[in-house]
């Protein structure tokens, strides 16, 4: 971590991923203005804020699907802004989507989705697939084993590899999307509202998965509305409101922050959060 000095001369050894002064507007409407924060290695950082605060926009900028009007994203001190989405993914950033986006064309199955997730490992070029089929078959077997491991890890071992993803219950589809993202063996996981649409039991299971990932050293940026989940897993919280960073800090600081309570949480939340922490 000591060598992570970015080109601007700013020493940034603390953070694995850092957004720096991101501003983005859509036809005059400011979605993000001058947002900066960093994530330390093996930390879970929650990104919260009311609907329309710019959380998903920020995630899209980090993963390269949108380019900001100004500002930078640094990953291991390297500026990601010049890179295209697939190059950013290859650097070790994987993400999931707010509305689950699984591959279903051509009867693609659960297992296909996971194998596609391993794309940056396999790199199946046209010529390789035609002429080096022995190598491909060998790699395929390894990747398939890893796919079943990931299914077990997210608790989908009962979903057969050859079922269609759209036949899975919604909660399982979310888990499958996370398993797919994990197939790329990322260092940073960007999760866009992974717990929305899950019932209480599923959220409880999901929490275990997040903590297990953290245990393994995964760095996670978690966009989420479920405050109970966030209070239980997050190391730090960033609050966005109308595209501006309202506050940043650990769970206690945020739950006591007056600005946050006024803008977002509502006055009765303080009691709830306090209750959780004493329990």
């Amino acid at each position, binding site marked *: 971590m000591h060598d992570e000095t970015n080109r601007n001369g700013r020493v940034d050894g603390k953070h694995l991923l850092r957004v720096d002064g991101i501003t983005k507007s859509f036809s005059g409407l400011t979605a993000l203005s001058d947002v900066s924060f960093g994530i330390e290695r093996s930390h879970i950082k929650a990104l919260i804020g009311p609907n329309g605060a710019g959380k998903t926009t920020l995630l899209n900028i980090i993963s390269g699907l949108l380019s900001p009007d100004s500002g930078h994203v640094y990953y291991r001190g390297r500026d990601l802004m010049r890179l295209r989405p*697939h190059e950013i*993914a290859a650097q070790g950033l994987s993400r999931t989507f707010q509305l689950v986006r699984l591959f279903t064309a051509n009867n693609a199955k659960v297992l*296909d989705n996971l194998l596609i*997730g391993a794309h940056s490992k396999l790199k*199946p070029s046209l010529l390789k*697939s*035609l002429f080096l089929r022995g190598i491909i078959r060998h790699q395929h077997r390894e990747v398939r084993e890893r796919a079943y491991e990931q299914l077990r890890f997210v608790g989908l071992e009962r979903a057969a590899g050859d079922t269609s993803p759209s036949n899975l219950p919604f909660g399982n589809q979310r888990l499958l999307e996370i398993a797919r993202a994990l197939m790329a063996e990322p260092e940073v996981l960007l999760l866009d509202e992974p717990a929305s649409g899950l019932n209480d039991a599923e959220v409880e299971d999901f929490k275990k998965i997040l903590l297990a990932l953290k245990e393994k050293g995964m760095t996670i940026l978690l966009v989420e509305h479920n405050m109970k989940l966030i209070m239980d897993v997050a190391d730090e919280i960033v609050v966005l409101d109308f595209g501006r960073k309202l506050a940043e800090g650990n769970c206690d600081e945020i739950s006591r922050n007056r600005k946050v309570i006024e803008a977002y949480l509502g006055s009765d939340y303080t009691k709830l959060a306090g209750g959780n922490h004493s329990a």
Partner: protein
Amino acid sequence: MKVKTNIGWLILLLFIALFPGTLGRMSPYYNTVLILVGIYVILAVSLDLLIGFAGQISVGHAAFYALGAYTSGILTVKHGISPSIALLCGLLVSGFVAWGIGRAVLRLKGYYLAMATLGLNAVIVKLITCFASITGGASGLLNIPPFRIFGLTLQDHTYYYYFVWGVVILVISCCLALARSPFGSTLIAIHSDEEAASTLGIDCPKYKLHVFVISSMLAGMAGSLFAHFMGFIAPDDFDIFTSILILVMLFLGGVGTIYGAALGAAFLKLLPEVTYRFQNYELFFHGLILILVLIFMPKGLLGILTHIKDWSLKSKHRSNLSSLGMER
């Protein structure tokens, strides 16, 4: 079950292998029909890689078919180059043009891509008509020599039949290998959701270009085979209606399966051999059959076959259960 599907394939291969000696004996005409079937199987199967797997709709496949045919025709007629080398050149020219045009055109999506490829087809046909001194213009290119390989001239339709079907089987097995490999899965990811695919590290423009090039090269090869078979080619053979015919074959047979495309091509090329008996009503019955298939078999002809297979498996399963007294 694995053995069973293999037996089905063996029977089909045996039929193709024995055809010239048996049915083909009755009239050489049947051999010519089957050669054309083979050429259209290549066209439909190669288009399936592009449309069925990568999800990029092209209505200009005949443009590359034309490029292959004319490259082969011009090189052999005007420059006396050997047909086998001309065929390779046809492959390369179609691939090269596809590479150049694909870089621009494949940025378009859906209907816009369809329109652009349709335009490309029209432009290619127009260019062929205009450069009459090289291409023979609207009246066509005459006296294209038959295929010759290793000093053996495949003038006889029986020999050419085996050559074409050898190529067809090679093409189908290559396309199947691609479709079932991780390369095929990558194409399916692009088909489903380009943005999501790119966040998993997939370079979508690169993969789309590669599949467009390989699909066009195969179409170019079909064109070469066609030119050396007919000995005469004209712009009409490669117009937009040919592209649409290939598309209909693909959707009729079942998109995204490779086998389906082959089945559709064979069906649509053989259908006139049956409907011509209706004489004046030929087109009526041809159209009627197409409409019925498309209405009642939305997954194409192959969809019906797999449906029957599933059904028979299920009923067998049920009878097994009932014999054990375990029926639900």
